[in-house]
């Protein structure tokens, strides 16, 4: 919890300053995005209104749509679930909202966070669907880590989660999936793609909606929402969320680019938005090659290769060759170079990545 930004009320009493938005109440916090001193009520209003504007301006939803909210129990998805149900009610979006969770099978982490999501189900009155790696793939992350160790486990988890979310969304028969990726996440992805030389991903990592060609489009209503403000919102609203980092990736969010972005934010809060703007404005010729999408011969999931990434990894696990699909080993896909690259850390933003830049 970042409490440094919370202005102590005593100080204000002395200065007698008022919220610079409503000019009526005492400011309770310094807004991370603008450094304005505002009161709690005004913070809720601007925070929610900004997200509402993003949703309306980008026409993210249509009335009557069924929407799944990717819920991990963490701060981003908890605030997303809360704000989405609030806005849906307040502005009559006419959406059917669902919570969708993935149970990776990580004892001491996911079991606890799932409890949080189950409480959210009751608190916000949103039906919850949980899909588990064990049911879908026959393996839990605990079992996978036992075999593969702590080195490439995030590759398995990321690939499996992406597909699990799609399968869960299909089971719920939803039209769209919303995820809690925030502005910091997107700015980080822009930088990482520059550092890795991945122009194709650089061109699409700032799109608010992705996967429109796939089975279920995904969108990011928090695209312009600062992580710090999400934490602040959860803190002031006393939202019930789970705040432990994954035990198999203890250094998540301590990545190099992440630190850099935090430093930038301290120096110039608008830098995060500026990075996203740059990402949107980059002149990338539309002829940049995109891998042709087909379907996996094994499971029918979208794939640019003969087998989808999850099937390759799963096949390796089941055959006792867990390194298959990681690094430069040979597998069932003949032309695997591109695929290899993906496994080496260039995961899409969709599978919210943990771990750091692969140096």
């Amino acid at each position, binding site marked *: 919890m970042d409490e440094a930004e919370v202005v102590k009320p005593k100080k204000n009493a002395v200065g007698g300053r008022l919220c610079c938005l409503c000019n009526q109440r005492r400011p309770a916090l310094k807004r991370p995005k603008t450094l304005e001193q505002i009161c709690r009520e005004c913070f809720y209003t601007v925070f929610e209104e900004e997200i509402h504007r993003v949703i309306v301006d980008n026409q993210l939803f249509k009335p009557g749509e069924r929407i799944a909210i990717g819920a991990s129990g963490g701060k981003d998805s908890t605030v997303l679930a809360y704000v989405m149900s609030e806005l849906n009610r307040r502005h009559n979006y006419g959406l059917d909202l669902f919570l969708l969770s993935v149970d990776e099978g990580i004892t001491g982490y996911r079991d606890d966070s799932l409890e949080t999501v189950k409480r959210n189900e009751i608190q916000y009155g949103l039906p919850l669907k949980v899909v588990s790696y064990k049911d879908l793939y026959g393996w839990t992350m605990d079992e996978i880590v036992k075999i593969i160790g702590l080195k490439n486990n995030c590759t398995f988890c990321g690939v499996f989660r992406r597909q699990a979310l799609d399968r869960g969304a299909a089971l719920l028969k939803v039209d769209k999936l919303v995820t809690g990726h925030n502005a910091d996440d997107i700015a980080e992805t822009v930088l990482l793609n*520059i550092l890795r*030389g991945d122009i194709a991903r*650089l061109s699409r990592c700032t799109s608010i909606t992705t996967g429109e060609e796939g089975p279920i489009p995904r969108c990011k209503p928090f695209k312009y929402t600062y992580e710090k403000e999400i934490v602040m919102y959860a803190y002031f609203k006393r939202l019930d969320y789970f705040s432990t980092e994954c035990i198999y990736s203890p250094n998540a969010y301590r990545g190099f680019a992440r630190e850099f972005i935090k430093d930038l934010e301290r120096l110039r809060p608008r830098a995060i938005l500026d990075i996203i*703007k740059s990402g*949107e404005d*980059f*002149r990338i*010729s539309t002829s940049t090659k995109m891998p042709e999408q087909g379907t996996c011969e094994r499971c029918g999931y979208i794939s640019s290769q003969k087998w989808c990434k999850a099937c390759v990894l799963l096949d390796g696990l089941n055959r006792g060759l867990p390194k298959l699909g990681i690094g430069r080993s040979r597998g069932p896909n003949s032309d695997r170079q591109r695929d290899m690259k993906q496994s080496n850390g260039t995961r899409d933003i969709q599978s919210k990545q943990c771990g750091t830049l692969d*140096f």
Partner: protein
Amino acid sequence: MACSSGSCQSGCYKDNNDAEVEEENRQYQKREAANRHSLCIKCKSNETIAATNPTAASLAGGGDGSRFCAECFRSNLFGKFKFAVTSNAMISPSDNVLVAFSGGTCSRVALQFVHEMQCKAQKNFDASRDRSLPVFGVGVAFINESAIYPVSSQQLDDAIEDMKLVVSNLTPPTKVFHVIPTASIYSSDLGEGNVRLKELVNGVSDATGKEDLMLHLRMLSLQKIALENGYTKLLLGSCTSRIACHVITATVKGQGYSLAADIQYVDARWGVPVVLPLRDCLTHELKMLCRLDSLNTVEVFDTPHSGINGLVSSFVKVLQLLCFRKENASRECTIVRTAGKLTPFDFNRMPESDDLNCHLASQRRRKKYNLQSNESLPPESFCRICNSPLNKSDSLSLNDVENGQLNAEAFGPKCCLSCQFQILPKEPSSVEHFYSLLPQPIITLAKDDGCNWRSLREQIQDCLLSDSEDGT
């Protein structure tokens, strides 16, 4: 024990223990490896720089220093420079090239290489019978920024003397050395120019903004020297490392649209086209060359970057170091390569010269790569402060510029969002003051644009059905 089996033919002493033998083996392998590696991987005959000049090699972090001998390293680096020059038609025989010289490593090497190229051209000229190919001219410019970055006058004088010496030693052919203070961009006398310059720059509260404004003013000063002295190209020593930093800073400042304009070999949006022949050379390579060839460098205004620029340059430096240690690869190169894939602007090509002096022979000689025209249309307008192309969706609709009012109010919206944020004052009253302090070139630029636009409108006036732009 070493030889427990009778079949051992290693020749080791039987009373040696395992550890000792192993240690010796390791030492031997190390020596062998060292011997193998101390030969240049290119010519395979000379010793590497690491062996002959360890201090110079240490500058390169053990990369090129342990692979090449000094000769091969030098020719490799010069090769990169030359390829950039020839493949982008940067210098033609009829050109008069102004080299921007700060005294630092990069511009020192740029000057050296340009001189070598000029020498060769001179030799060819002297040797050829018909003397059909003239030798391009070279001038050197140093911008004195002491008005903003204070240094003692003694220090400055010494540095300028050193630079004069450097330039005068690079003969024949002789090169003119221009030393110009930044204040010369004001047409008024220097004293008054200095006052206005100081007030302008010190009025910018944002540290990063101030630094960037100085950068733009430096470019204006260089352009002024080039234009007034008949130079046809302005050559900068920007190296890969520096460009990599620019890629990240531009991204962080929200200049993603204009970024592609700044990082190409050629940038002809200025009065005198700017060329970057060291775009493919890394700082540490240039440093090593300076050490190897004892090229004197003078750091006059070696102020450490502050604000965003400082943060980014330390970030890139650490990335480069990490990447180099782990994979022996250059993160800086990857960054520049990524940005290089962005679509450049039309002005990033050398304009076709209709100069009659441009001989057939020289045209024949020119190799042109990367010069194919792309489909992108030239952007309509440039930021009035930093001259970066404006994204149409950011710039105000033409309506707002229509009345062509050339005052402070009209000036603000004609700047890019980044300059508006970090350079322009926030209060409208201060903008007016800021505008009054701007040097002539920037104001003229703004005026020209307005006039052009109005004259265009006048030409088609008879066909326009309404007074507003959208035709409603």
